[in-house]
């Protein structure tokens, strides 16, 4: 589903590459944690998958597409197959829960009938029944993140990227968020989650890829956050 082949990314005016010779494969339906300290290249990895950045060297395939051959014209179509969740939720403050989720479908031109059908379904999936009229500032951090996940998932992407989704959320609420991500993963969606949260990684026992200074230093199935011997 995601295939990196000797990928190096160097940002202009920076000596050390943000990613260096990274080769890895994420299969369809996998759940992968991307761990490592700040500046280790986790965000760069996610941006490369979205084609927000181009690799300096190496090839990237996402959902069967060679990103180097993908014209700018086609990038939006790639992104429709990838859902994104961020630490800071990125909801529209002037739209309620339903409108925030529907927005993602409106802007890719989905018909209204379709939107009316799928948005309530996904609201139920993330556990926000009865809160569809709430505005973002009336919701807790955990609830806002659920809205963001609903928005990322409403178009049934094949890949879900999550960049520190529990970063602004207390540990108890984080468990709920992880349950939603797990539920999304069980529908066959590949999930890649960048995180600092050791407790979560340890409890989920999923594949862990650890980055350090832009290199893969560990790739372990059923791994934990810290070094395991």
């Amino acid at each position: 589903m995601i295939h990196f082949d000797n990928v190096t990314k160097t940002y202009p005016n920076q000596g050390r590459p943000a990613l260096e010779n990274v080769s890895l494969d994420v299969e369809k339906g996998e759940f992968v944690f991307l761990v490592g300290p700040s500046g280790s290249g986790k965000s760069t990895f996610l941006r490369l998958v979205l084609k927000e950045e181009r690799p300096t060297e190496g090839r990237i395939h996402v959902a069967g597409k060679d990103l180097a051959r993908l014209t700018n014209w086609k990038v939006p179509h790639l992104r429709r197959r990838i859902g994104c969740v961020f630490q800071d939720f990125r909801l529209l403050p002037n739209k309620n829960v339903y409108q925030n989720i529907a927005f993602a479908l409106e802007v890719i031109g989905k018909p209204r009938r379709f939107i009316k059908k799928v948005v309530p379904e996904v609201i139920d999936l993330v556990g926000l029944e009865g809160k569809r009229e709430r505005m973002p500032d009336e919701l807790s951090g955990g609830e806002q993140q659920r809205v963001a996940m609903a928005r990322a998932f409403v178009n049934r992407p094949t890949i879900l990227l999550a960049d520190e989704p529990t970063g602004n959320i207390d540990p108890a609420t984080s468990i709920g968020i992880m349950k939603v991500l797990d539920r999304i993963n069980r529908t066959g969606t590949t999930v890649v989650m960048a995180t600092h949260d050791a407790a979560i990684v340890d409890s989920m026992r999923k594949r862990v890829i650890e980055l350090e200074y832009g290199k893969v230093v560990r790739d372990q199935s059923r791994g934990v956050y810290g070094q395991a011997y």
Partner: protein
Amino acid sequence: MRAQFVFHEVWIGLRRNLTMTIALIVVVAISLSLLGTGLLFVKQVDNTRAYWQSRVQLSVYLCSSQAFSTECAKNGAVTQAEIANIQQQLNGPLKNYIVSATYVSQAQAWAQFKQEFANSPTLVKYTSQDQIPSSFEIKLRNTEADAGPVTNIVDGYPGVAEVVDDSSILNNFYKLLDGARTAVVIIAAFLLIAAILLVANTIRLSAFNRRRETSIMRLVGASNFYVQLPFLVEGMIAGLVGWLFATGLLVAVKGFWLNGLQSYFPYGVTLSSTDLIEVIIIAMITGLLICGSTSFLTLRRYLRV
């Protein structure tokens, strides 16, 4: 394509940016109406020129018993033989330059004079037929090129008091109109530049105001077209509203000003409604083109995917 969604976004953009939008509309309105005024001037000048081109004449005034010119003082009033001679010259050697040459006798000129100054009986009362010179009214084949030479030749014939080129009188009038037109077009050009900069700025502000929405749109895979269209439509709508105001101003300019100007010149050269509509359509195309293309170029810079 969801038109409702696009127009909702456009409405939000215009409302959030209200002051800039108003400034944009005002500048577009003024620059378009000035441009239109300039074009109306051009049309007016062209029409006037065409009108006079077919009518412009050389008036060859002959000596009367009362004439003051040196030639007349020497020889006295023009004689029948001299008139016949001039007639012959005009129909002979100068034939190639002349379309027609009509002799206007003192009696005819006097009748015409009385008619033209019917409103000033005192003037007519103290003028006698003797004082009104007879003349040849010459219509030239090519006014601009031939007026000078023909004037020089005809001026030398005995019995000729003075040759007056009608177009030299009109030239001053043309200069006035041309000057006014140039001034209006230059001002319009500057304002159009201001309008372009304002459009660019408004769209940029609008894009900045909605960077949250657009970043999410890009994230969920909205096409460039979908992300940019609301901004494009926003610029075009401001342009169209500006154009509507400009249309009102142009109708007023034509109605009150140009028509008023024309009333000073009794030889009616009126601009038709077709002329006005043509100018208004040109203004609309200019407005839409400027607003649309500027928005588009600005978006390419500030809303990259």
